[in-house]
């Protein structure tokens, strides 16, 4: 089971009118619909992933693994994101080197946090 977190607020710094959909929410819905066939992937539609200056944003955050954030995403990245989620799910530490990622995501890594692995291991 892997979770993809997607920010539905993006773009925080260019908010739409109250009755309009944000690009982040559009992306989240597209990814959620695409992931619906795959029971192993859950999509969490969240309010922010701290990647606001570089919308749209997604993250992988499994316990005991690196936290990976992506920025600058667009609907065309959907299948690459799902593929990366599977790679992440299969890796033991969650550290994704660029060459394990689909080409179009390589330049879109916005952050990688490894804190959590030693914390979890110590328990």
């Amino acid at each position, binding site marked *: 089971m892997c*979770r993809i*977190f997607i920010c539905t*607020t993006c773009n*925080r710094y260019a908010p739409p009118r109250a009755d309009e*959909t944000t690009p982040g*929410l559009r992306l989240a*819905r597209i990814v*959620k*619909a695409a992931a*619906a066939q795959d029971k192993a992937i*859950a999509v*969490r*539609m*969240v*309010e*922010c992933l*701290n*990647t*606001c*200056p*570089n919308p749209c944003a997604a993250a992988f*955050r499994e*316990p*005991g693994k690196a*936290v990976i*954030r992506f920025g600058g995403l667009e609907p065309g990245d959907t299948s690459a994101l799902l593929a990366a989620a599977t790679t992440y799910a299969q890796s033991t530490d969650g550290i994704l080197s660029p060459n394990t990622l689909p080409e179009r995501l390589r330049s879109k890594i*916005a*952050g990688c*946090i490894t*804190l*959590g692995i030693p*914390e*979890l291991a110590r*328990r």
Partner: protein
Amino acid sequence: MARTLFTNTMIFEGTGKTLVPGEVLVQGNRIHSVAKPGETLPREGAQVVDAGGATLMPGMVNSHAHPTYNNGTSVAELTNLPVEEHVLLCMHTAKLNLDMGFTALIGAASAKPRLDIVIRNEINKGRIPGPRMLAGSPELTVTGGLADDNQLDAKHPSISIICDGPEEFRKTVRMLIREGVDVIKFNNSGDSFCYPRMAAYDNPMTDAEVAAICETANNIGKRLAAHAHADSSVRQCIKHGVEFIFHASFATDETIGMLERVKDKHYISPAIAARYNTTYEAKDWGITTDVAEMIGNKRELEEGIKVMIKMHKAGIKVLPFGDYGFAWLPHGTEARDLEHFVHLFGFEPWEALRAATAYGGEAWVGKSGEKMGRIADGYLADILLVDGNPLLDLSLLQDRHALLAIMKDGQFHKPFQGRVAQEQQIAAE
């Protein structure tokens, strides 16, 4: 009196280790009764909500909330907008909090003196949506302390009221209570957020000043909260009966032992996101991990984690959420703390949820005798229906689409439209 009967639910009671199937009857603004597995409750005169097996749990309580913070990038920036716009911003933030499943907030410092107060009053009158609120004061600080951003030749408005000496604090506390605050907040430690002026492990307040604040507030029955990273800050809080101790990052083992002996009197709020996110997720705003290390934020994070693990083991009540309202820990993302409590502090998921609900409710009501934060007879009807089991995946609570219904004070803020309906709505959108 209006009656709502929730059937076909899996109940997280607020203190239980597992979900238990059952029914819950709400009458007026309270939980009237809870049916155990196999029992049923009377249907007569009730709106029946068949929850389709969804989790029913208490609304969450943010015991360290800054609904007036504007997602700014520095302490001074948090109040850097005209009061008119600021009121509207707070109104939207209050609604967002309720949308995200927070049915009660404890104001932990207001960016301008009357903002928490007016928003609380409007919510209480039912004119705007929002959680139950205790209104916080601005941060009371000393000259040069956290949130005094002035220089001799340059004034910088910030989120504080600056006082020096017991008499100035006494007068300010009385003035704020006159205006209507519920919680007096003061800063008896520095912070990486005021680098290089004063480190988190330094305490600029004299004992006489802290005594004056606490005595004045206690005499009128108001609550107390302190920004207290330093060991001596935590000790002052114990000595003077400060109920809400924020951060406590540098508490020594001896101080943790002292706290353990009076653990029914205090709640600890590490506000972990102000450390974790600042250290690891703020680089888009110029705070790389190296910068976070230089200003001391990373050390606050690492020491704080060690302290919270010890406090949790000692049975001290450590509560999640806190300090949201900065650019890299914006409002609406508070529930991420629950996972940090599990992965960084060693909580079991049910313990993290207990802290978010039962303990948060107990903290909110204080000595009033009110009942909040559990699914039990006589408790206030602040209730969430969740699409899944949060004990298996706490991240459900970060996703507003997983909150199938939100009830506050017996009234639906978000009515239940069925589990399937929600899925269809997402697909159709």
